[in-house]
């Protein structure tokens, strides 16, 4: 199994860098993973998106649809891409510690 090493810590991840064990998530995980998704610093706007996705996942067991993310956080899709350059699925969900989104990508 691949691992992701950062700041002296070591995370078990899948090939795409998603946390293998979503329950191990905490805020430090998001901070540690940020750089790998081309994000220098996590701003309050980043946290708004991450926390929304994280809480939705804890409640419903899946990632929210993108239009829900936009509606609930108030960010337009292009603003989400400004915050997370690799996009809501690869970027934001990864930082929120969700399992990898699947389907016909």
């Amino acid at each position: 199994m691949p691992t992701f090493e950062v700041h002296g810590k070591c995370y078990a991840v899948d090939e795409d860098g998603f946390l293998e064990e979503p329950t191990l998530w905490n805020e430090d995980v998001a901070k540690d993973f940020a750089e790998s998704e081309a994000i220098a610093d996590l701003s309050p706007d980043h946290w708004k998106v991450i926390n929304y996705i994280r809480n939705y996942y804890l409640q419903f067991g899946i990632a929210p649809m993108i239009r829900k993310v936009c509606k609930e956080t108030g960010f337009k899709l292009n603003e989400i891409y400004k915050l997370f350059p690799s996009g809501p699925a690869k970027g934001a969900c990864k930082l929120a510690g969700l399992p990898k989104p699947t389907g016909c990508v």
Partner: protein
Amino acid sequence: MADGSNGKPKTELLDQLEKGPWPSFVKEIKSACETSDAPKDLLGQLELSYKEKKGHWKHGGLVGVLGYGGGVIGRYSDIPEQFPKVAHFHTMRINHPAGWFYTSDALRTICDIWERHGSGLTNMHGSTGDIILLGTTTDQLEPTFQELANAGFDLGGSGSDLRTPSCCVGQARCEWACYDTMKLCYDLTMNYQDELHRPAFAYKFKIKMAGCPNDCVASIARADCSVIGTWKDDIQVDEGEVAKYAAGGLDIQKEVCSLCPSKCMEWDGKKLAIENHECVRCMHCINVMPKALRPGKERGAVVLLGAKAPIMQGALLSSVLIPFVPADEIEETLKELFTRIWEFWDEYGRSRERVGELIQRVGMSAFLEGIGLDPAPEMVSAPRDNPYIYFQNVEGGDK
């Protein structure tokens, strides 16, 4: 893994597919071994799959380039120790030029880039239309993308976005094209770059454009929105050419008239008569006598909606949404239509529900009302045969 004596993998099963007259994909992959190491492991893994009768790719894969949410399909081998060169084997979708017309310069450019960064293997083309660059590693995605972009190529679509639109060759090479499919395809692709690169829908959405009802891109079966050329006035008839077909031995009564689905043609041995108001524009007579018959002069397109493959609720062909749009209004009409459809889909679509399924679930009348279109007889092949008709409560009405 078991190497053959020549350093290439032993591929006894695959080798059989080098025999026979059809161009062999095994030969192609073997020749790609000259420029990259990946094809060798691909052959090895494929041979194993042939033996075991099962795939050896892991489930899913999520990779991409910065700024985009689609365009790259991540893929990993489930036996990377055995086949390290295909441990990563991602696919890049590159938006093709409308109608798939290339200069050899353009193709050489793509080949050079792909030889430097990928396996050298391609699919020309994916079913949706994209140029498929088959097999590279995660760290090569950005550099490949940069080089392609500098050469004027962009990624195509994937995921819950607008997929790469495609069209038939249309007016470039076909006398039956009722509108400029290539221009429409290009214009829509450019207009919806955001929707294409950044998945924002409940699920995928495809647009395909055919210049006439022959539908050479199979738009009616493979696109959520199918735009199919047609005409409103009379079929253009060249009597002299009809006579030549007859003189040349074509049995016009048998081969044309009696096969006309609406039985609206007659041939008395001298003159071909067409009752155009009965004609359903099936193309048959025009297909049989291309020199004598042509689509009419008042041209445009039918817009159809909803085609999809079986998952989840069963396969669908697109059905008529707008019976006729004049050629010079198609683009404008589609843009307005997409705005409304996507808004409705956004509001009511479930996660991973295609537009066709949404219509099945909420009903055509609710959908039409949602997007502000009036029902028309052309939308159905037959009226409903059950009496479970829903009436809206009208104010002041009888409850």
